């Protein structure tokens, strides 16, 4: 790919075309930015106009947005962060360990478990959502600190499937050498196998983060709604009960919820794009 490329006339045409297309692509996000800076009345009158002297509202919408809807936005953001980090960590740790067990032990139980995991990938969430919320309620899994167990349970399928595929390709000799040198299975896994799994850990981790951070229905059904909200629940809640009241504040809330992800994306987009491509090929 790195060889010298020659640009032809048509390639300049493509660049111009795609620059325009990119602007169209970014337009919805641009809309959110400008409307979050305008007075509510001005948004209703014309959402596409740029803010002018009359309609410009500074950062007031953001100040309102922080406490809008009787629930502090920062709480939702914190719960979203806690749930995403804990769940992703738990999924990566437990599923990579299980996948190693499945690939190396490979007895009847391991095989059945593996087939169940593959099966679970085609089951839509709607099939289990009502019963899952009953079970989670009874086992007190309805807080941000215990919901990772639910995420591990429902998300294990894809993660184990990807990890097993990768572990099967690892050379056995390295682990055998570790065993001969006196490493037990626990040390072999954490010191030898886990470092080799790094690329898959990154791909799986990215897929899980994108899923859990943006997930609406599972936390909505499982979490105790009177105490805990995540960002998607928060936004849907504002729409349901305050939709017509203060669009400006809602735009500010949306801006605050997408800005951190976009910044994160710009910093590690190479990993994200590579992770998505790798994850998809395995699927």
């Amino acid at each position, binding site marked *: 790919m790195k060889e010298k490329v020659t640009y032809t006339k048509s390639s*300049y045409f493509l660049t111009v075309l795609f620059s325009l297309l990119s602007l169209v692509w970014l337009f919805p996000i641009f809309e959110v930015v400008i409307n979050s800076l305008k007075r509510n009345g001005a948004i209703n009158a014309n959402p596409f106009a740029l803010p002018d002297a009359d309609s410009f509202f500074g950062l007031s919408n953001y100040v309102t947005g922080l406490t809008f809807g009787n629930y502090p936005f920062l709480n939702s953001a914190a719960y979203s962060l806690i749930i995403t980090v804990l769940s992703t960590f738990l999924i990566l740790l437990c599923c990579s360990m299980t996948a190693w067990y499945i690939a190396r032990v490979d007895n009847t139980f391991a095989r059945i478990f593996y087939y169940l995991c593959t099966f679970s990938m085609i089951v839509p969430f709607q099939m289990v959502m009502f019963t899952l919320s009953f079970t989670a309620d009874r086992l007190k899994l309805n807080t941000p600190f215990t919901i990772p167990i639910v995420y591990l349970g429902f998300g294990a399928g894809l993660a184990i499937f990807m990890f097993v595929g990768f572990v099967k390709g690892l050379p056995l000799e390295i682990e055998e050498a570790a065993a001969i040198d006196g490493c037990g299975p626990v040390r072999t896994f954490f010191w030898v196998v886990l470092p080799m799994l790094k690329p898959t850990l990154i791909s799986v981790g990215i897929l899980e983060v994108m899923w859990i951070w943006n997930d609406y229905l599972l936390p909505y059904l499982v979490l105790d709604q009177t105490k805990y909200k995540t960002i998607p629940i928060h936004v849907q809640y504002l729409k349901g009960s305050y939709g017509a009241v203060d669009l400006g504040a809602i735009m500010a809330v949306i801006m605050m919820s997408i800005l951190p992800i976009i910044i994160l994306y710009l910093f590690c987009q190479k990993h994200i794009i590579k992770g998505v491509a790798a994850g998809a090929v395995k699927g």
Partner: protein
Amino acid sequence: MSDKKKKKAKRPSGSAVTSNLIRKPIQRWAPLFILPTFVCFCIGFIWPFLQGIYLSFCNFMTPKDAKWVGITNYVKAFSDPSFGRAFWNTTGFAVVSIVLINIIAFFIAYALTQAMRGANLFRTVFFMPNLIGGVVLGYIWSMIFDGILHRYGTYLEANATYGFWGLVILVAWQQIGYMMIIYIAGLQAVPGDMLEAAKIDGASGWKTLTKVILPNVMPSITICTFLTLTNSFKMFDQNLALTGGNPITTLADGSKIAATELLALNIYSTYNISRNWHGVAQAKAVIFFILVAVLALSQLYATRSKEVQQ
């Protein structure tokens, strides 16, 4: 993908290749390696799945007061006009979005793998909508659509056609970037000497595309059609946040039909009608699961068999 399968087949099966040097000690640590995941898997998947099948034959408020009613729920589900409407909505939506997303994503990926300035920047831009959750996306786009329709004196939830195409545009905007990434990976794996050979033999651009490139990216096409198919059948958040099923009409017998509702949302709203509908919603969920599973498996089977012929 087909030669990956061959490679796997050549390997001796796991138990033969794993020496007892490794296998036995790991087995002793089973409680640590496999038990926590297995327990969670039972809580989060197996138990709810089995209980879901059982409850689809019951009238229930909670699992404790479930009463067996046989196939009544399934009869009710099939005779519910809103379920049929949601089914056709979903089918139409799936067909349109699979075609639209895959064609556009493929051509964007094709253009971005040509010699072009700024290709990486464009790739970054097109992928960005994927990071935003469905609920937030629905909100952003409902504002935009309402802003446009406002000029013509109407609004998004006034007309089912607006809602349908609105959802198509939203989902295309979100998913084209994702599929583009997969197509780019596929296109970059097309062997360079094959393209050169085609050039030397005097193949036109179109011929090269259809006879050389397309057969080579068949695995990516399989994955992308699979993902767009299952994504559009399972679509929920975007549907809920964009129109929430509106406009809703009430029939003479009091039942309601939501004109822009897809299957997943229909199951959810059925559950919320009243306690007598819980069982019906669960029965619909079982039907939905079977539908998604059959579609996904037959799609994989159909496109995989094309890959082998290349």
